[in-house]
């Protein structure tokens, strides 16, 4: 099916399912949807789960590889696709299946963006606590597939905690659902958990239901500054053992802070921030909290912990008292929102700064955050990268960026070595997924790394959901 005639045939066949105006095979158009330089043969935008089911049945019968796609905010994750016959966009699945503000539940189509959900629930002073990057583009379906999260994960948990139901189409074209539209349900297997973080390899998510939460009336962020990561983590432990229950507890590494502050508006590529010399990263001291009034450490050496709190003036006053002198400043209102936008958009800032950067999602136990970050700093220096990290240090979910120092792109082996070093330090049940890196590097290593989940069990489950392996072939862990 690689001849031009066959391709023309494919578009025509697909037009029969979704309508000719929602199928394209024009070279210029499909090129926009390339993933790791693999250009899809066709791009389609079905209007309904029924149309998707028809497409999937056809794809299965003809051994065509289907790649589901939302807002393209997470498509850079994964191994290089074997081939893409059909790139299936969910952009037209925007139905609001259910929303009653009194129920504090919403069900929407997979193509609904996070910003659109916000527009629906925001006026009712409610929120979906999914503060993933690029909310204007990121869709509900894509966020589920990639198990996306943001700083609010600290207080509200992840999608696995507040997604209560899911609708999807299987690889063999069955429309199915699991879960429910209410906050509590244990009827049936929890296929939400299977689909969340499955990167489009189990089924095509067409819609989902979520618990909503009241939006805090007032939010304020306390910014604490430290001369070393070790001190920042001591502070983290102290906050976690205190009675405080912040909305976010985020660490920003010195280089991440510099990048976020200088978040470039122009396309200028700026590389070459000096890496800290090994001696500059002080480790193992717990007494060096910065005193108020003391001169501030330079940004390029300062580790920040951001504590975002919601509540009344009395509650915020209590935070101030508990957090004490480690807090260098407080921000609220628009400044608070802007600060968290920058934290959330760290991945975008990283790649605007350097197209050749590598972004790693690290998931570890709380007390492994320090050792893993220290190791990453060392690996970065050894391989000519600058390490910049932000992370949910209260849950052990980090985003680690490695930006090349030199103007010319590093060799593929330098990416491989840096990732390998990081993974070598991570404990056995930890994960270090390379979310994004140059395609050349991807050819030399697994972006997924090791997994604490039994491989044979995962493979057998994948097989019963997609026996012909037509969903995202070649891109996942196995």
């Amino acid at each position: 099916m690689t001849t031009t005639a066959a391709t023309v045939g494919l578009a025509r066949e697909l037009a029969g399912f979704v309508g000719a105006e929602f199928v394209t095979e024009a070279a210029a158009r499909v090129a926009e949807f390339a993933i790791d330089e693999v250009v899809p043969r066709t791009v389609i935008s079905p209007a309904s789960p029924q149309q998707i089911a028809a497409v999937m049945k056809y794809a299965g019968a003809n051994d065509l590889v289907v790649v589901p796609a939302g807002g393209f905010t997470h498509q850079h994750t994964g191994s290089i696709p074997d081939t893409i016959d059909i790139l299936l966009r969910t952009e037209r699945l925007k139905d609001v299946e259910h929303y009653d503000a009194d129920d504090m539940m919403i069900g929407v189509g997979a193509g609904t963006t996070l910003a659109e959900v916000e527009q629906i629930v925001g006026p009712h002073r409610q929120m979906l606590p999914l503060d993933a990057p690029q909310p204007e583009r990121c869709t509900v379906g894509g966020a589920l597939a990639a198990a996306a999260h943001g700083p609010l994960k600290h207080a509200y948990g992840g999608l696995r905690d507040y997604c209560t139901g899911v609708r999807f189409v299987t690889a063999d074209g069955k429309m199915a659902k699991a879960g429910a539209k209410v906050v509590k349900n244990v009827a049936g297997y929890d296929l939400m958990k299977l689909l969340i973080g499955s990167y489009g390899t189990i089924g095509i998510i067409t819609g989902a239901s979520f618990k909503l939460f009241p939006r805090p009336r007032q939010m304020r962020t306390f910014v604490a500054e430290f001369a070393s990561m070790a001190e920042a983590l001591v502070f983290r432990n102290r906050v976690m053992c205190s009675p405080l229950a912040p909305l976010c507890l985020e660490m920003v590494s010195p280089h991440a802070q510099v990048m976020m502050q200088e978040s470039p508006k122009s396309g200028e590529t700026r590389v070459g921030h000096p890496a800290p010399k090994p001696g500059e990263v002080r480790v193992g001291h717990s007494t060096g909290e910065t005193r108020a009034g003391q001169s501030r450490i330079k940004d390029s050496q300062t580790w920040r912990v951001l504590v975002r709190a919601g509540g009344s003036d009395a509650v915020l006053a209590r935070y101030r008292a508990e957090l004490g002198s480690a807090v260098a400043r407080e921000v609220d209102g628009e400044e608070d929102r802007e600060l968290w936008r920058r934290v959330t958009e760290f991945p975008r800032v990283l790649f605007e700064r350097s197209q050749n950067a590598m972004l790693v999602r690290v998931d570890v136990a709380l007390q492994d955050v320090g050792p893993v970050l220290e190791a990453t700093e060392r690996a970065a220096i050894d391989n000519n990268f600058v390490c910049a990290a932000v992370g949910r240090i209260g849950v052990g979910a980090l985003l680690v960026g490695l930006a090349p120092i030199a103007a010319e792109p590093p060799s593929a082996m330098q990416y491989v070595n840096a990732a390998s070093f990081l993974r070598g330090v991570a404990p056995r049940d930890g994960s270090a997924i390379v979310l994004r890196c140059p395609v050349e590097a991807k050819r030399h290593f697994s972006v997924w790394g090791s997994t604490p989940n039994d491989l044979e069990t995962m493979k057998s489950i994948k097989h019963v959901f997609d026996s012909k392996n037509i969903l995202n072939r070649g891109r996942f862990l196995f």
Partner: protein
Amino acid sequence: MPASAIAKELGKIVGADHVLERPEDVMLYEYDGGLSTGTPEVVVFPTSKEEVSQIARLASRMKVSLVPRGAGTGLSGGSIPRAGGIVLVVSRMTKILEIDAANRRAVVEPGVVNSDLSAAVAEHGLYFAPDPASQRASTIGGNVAENSGGAHTLAHGVTVNHITGLEVVLADGRVVQMGGKPVDSCGYDLTGLFVGTEGTVGIVTAITVKLTKVAEAVETLLAIFNTVDDAANTVMSITSDGITPVALEMLDGKTLRCVEEATHAGYPMDSGAVLLIELEGLREAVTEQAEAVRAVCQRHQAREVRRAANEAERQLLWKGRKTAFAALGRLAPAYYTQDGVVPRSHIAKVLRYIETVAQKCNLQIGNIFHAGDGNLHPCILFDLRDPDQVERTHRAGKMILQYCVDAGGTITGEHGVGMEKNELMPLLFSEDDLAVMKRVHDVLNPQSVLNPQKLFPAPRSCRETNIADAQRGRR
């Protein structure tokens, strides 16, 4: 294969002292906390994953059903053998393998009793959040199988929200790892998928749980209303006002009168409903929220809002809730507790509907429930010796669950499907939905050796036999 032969093989694995086969012994394992019964042929008590694995291999080889069991406190028949065979009890697997306070995790064997874990980690200011009413008896293994809830799930979530890793023995005896201490991991979330599978895809042998920090302050309020509608509207206003209680429980008039007679907790005999509202967190936040709750209650014509001034008063306010089922039990020889869920905005309506069902079926139904979640526990009182009452009880139960589903809810919020509601699954799920779910079952438990005839409706041809069996099994 005769029971004695199975018992002999099991004895080789765990020692003959840890196998039961005499009818008077095995009959102790034919029931749970609900109404269903089923007698095992053999009961076995392993102590390790190796033994569990060997037992699974044996059961698969002999094609004998294997049903895991914790403390037997379940309410949907999850641990009851439907096809005789082996019941595997985890009561000898009670080790807390690790307490890792710095990482907020513990690793436990499945037989550890829920409240024992909280007691063991209390010195660190931590506890295990899922709090099913059975928590002093029920095991964490059982909580994992059923994805148990409890009164405080409104804020803390159900069991799955507190499990990050599992070690599981599959039907073929393979011991597999899922997750670990981190909240997320590379690959499919097998841990999340496994929790709530009701013993139908594997037997858990080690569990990594999250530990939660004990809150600095707790406020417990009891609001008394003249009508159920006022109480129901209060529930909706509390949540929509942005107040986030950790528990929000309702008892209707019938129930609270029974409770008062039994426990003398001080509930007014003529009130229509009471709400038990608990807040926890930072002292300042709790104080403010308590005031806000009081204001909402008064806006909805609460005739009185009581506040527990100390732990003893708090326990007294909870006593009525915790003893409610037992108190209702004084009115009839048996009761049947439903577990449907409705969207919060339907609480008043569903309670009115339950009242009409009670009249139509000529039964007494008390309502005790997790109002904040919309998770109903209508408690239908009846006499098991009267077949007509039994039939009416089941009819009433089904009518209520149908209503829950029609209102956009579900048939079970925390008790599980088991053998109690497996034939009701089609109310909620299409044939395709169930067929797709069943793929997970069939690939991990292909011979249906593990906990057969549960959770999924029986194929049409077998359905009548199952119903007959279930009825024969009832006490």
